[in-house]
């Protein structure tokens, strides 16, 4: 048996061992691996980054704790990025069980930058029936949410002065693990035409690239990898970037094995052909 033939029939346990090594090492020694940034995440980063202090955007925290692991890093990075640039944010929840979680995250990050509810951001809270919420917010936030999460009338909030509906903000970023994304596309972007970007879970991602192609969304943060990209771009790093060493190394190992496998295949075929 030649070297190449042996390679073709490589004992699979060498492959297992390689995978084991690349997932154990980052667990013991933490280190950083750069993440490849993609245009769809970069566009969202640029959208936030290019806004002037005092500009508004709407952030939808439309997920519940079950999707926390993948989506929270996105919320974390975007909120930090926006607050550090003194942007004004209107935040709403269209997912019933996510509102408490969102409030905690918002208060914690807001406090870090000395941002106050009602002054620098407005937390609308939760309303059921996402489609009608989006439609009515496109007309007037006050119709959907007469009061904010803390029970204060929107009209009396300084941050909401001169801002009436979703057309008055620079754009919408919706972070979700469910079909709320479809409602934002159909009823939000579809009816009102405001710029829309999505942050979604990894399993959903394959189904949402079509909206990027058709221009219905301008950006997309897919799963933990997308979250890591935003973290890397904005410099506000958390669990997204921590997961990248494992992922990059194991993908690299698999790709390497595919290359070796094909080199072996062509080498043996060439030998046989002679």
């Amino acid at each position, binding site marked *: 048996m030649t070297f190449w033939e042996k390679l073709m029939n490589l004992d*699979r346990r060498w492959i297992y061992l390689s995978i084991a090594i690349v997932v154990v090492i980052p667990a013991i020694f933490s280190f950083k691996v750069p993440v490849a940034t993609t245009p769809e995440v*970069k566009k969202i980063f640029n959208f936030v980054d290019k806004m002037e202090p005092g500009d508004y955007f709407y952030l939808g925290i439309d997920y519940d704790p079950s999707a926390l692991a993948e989506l929270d890093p996105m919320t974390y990075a975007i909120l930090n990025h926006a607050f550090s640039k003194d942007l004004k944010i209107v935040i709403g929840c269209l997912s019933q069980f996510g509102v408490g979680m969102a409030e905690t995250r918002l208060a914690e990050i807001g406090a870090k930058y000395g941002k106050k509810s009602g002054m620098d951001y407005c937390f609308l809270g939760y309303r059921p029936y996402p489609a009608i919420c989006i439609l009515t917010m496109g007309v007037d936030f006050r119709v959907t949410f007469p009061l904010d999460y803390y029970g204060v009338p929107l009209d009396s909030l300084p941050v909401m002065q001169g801002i009436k509906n979703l057309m008055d903000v620079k754009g919408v970023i919706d972070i979700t693990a469910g079909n709320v994304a479809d409602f934002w596309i159909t009823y939000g972007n579809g009816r009102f035409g405001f710029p829309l970007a999505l942050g979604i879970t990894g399993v959903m*991602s394959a189904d949402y690239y079509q909206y*990027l192609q058709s221009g219905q969304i301008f950006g997309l943060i897919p799963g933990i990898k997308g979250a890591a990209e935003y973290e890397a771009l904005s410099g506000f790093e958390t669990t997204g970037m921590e997961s990248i060493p494992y992922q990059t190394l194991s*993908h690299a190992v698999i790709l390497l094995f595919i290359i070796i496998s*094909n080199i072996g295949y062509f080498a043996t075929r060439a030998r046989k052909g002679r």
Partner: protein
Amino acid sequence: MKKQIPIYFVLVSGIVMVIQYFVPSEESEWLFTYANDWVIVIGIFALALGIWALLKTEFKKLKKPKEAFYAGTVLFGYFIMVLTGLKREWREAGTLHMDLFDNILIPIQATIFALLAFYVASAAYRAFRARTVLATILLLTAFIVMLRLIPLGPFSAINQTVVSWILAVPNMAAKRAITMGVGLGAIATCIKIILGIERTYLGHD
């Protein structure tokens, strides 16, 4: 009678459920829930059959010295879960039942699931060889998609553009076509069963 009557049961219950779908009335909604409960209740009683067969096999094995230890393990696992779970508050934290659930079932399940990380690598090594045009297409697409995790500087952006196009266009088209094919195949199978053309599953004497 043993053979014909069940075929009529399939026919009648099948047709009734097809018609039910088009009737929005409250009675029809009740029928839908009720029929689904039939399926559930039959399933509960059937579980006893499965468990009985399982225990019978393991009790038999208990007599063979080579198998006795493993059969004992199955029986131990089964009866300890049943006995600790008899109370109405069986799912409350801190009970022995939950501790066993959290520390036996969950870690083993999660670890078997985690084996997949190794298997995707070995399957990729073996299958992704450019033997035929089809294998090459499969290999190249998977390669490009996996490449998105590797930082390649400016090339990453190009690669990602290709990936998002693959996902939005051919991947989407493939999914839709398979779904439609599955739909037709499944409905045809249902019709064959409802009409009694396919009856192998029912058995006869």
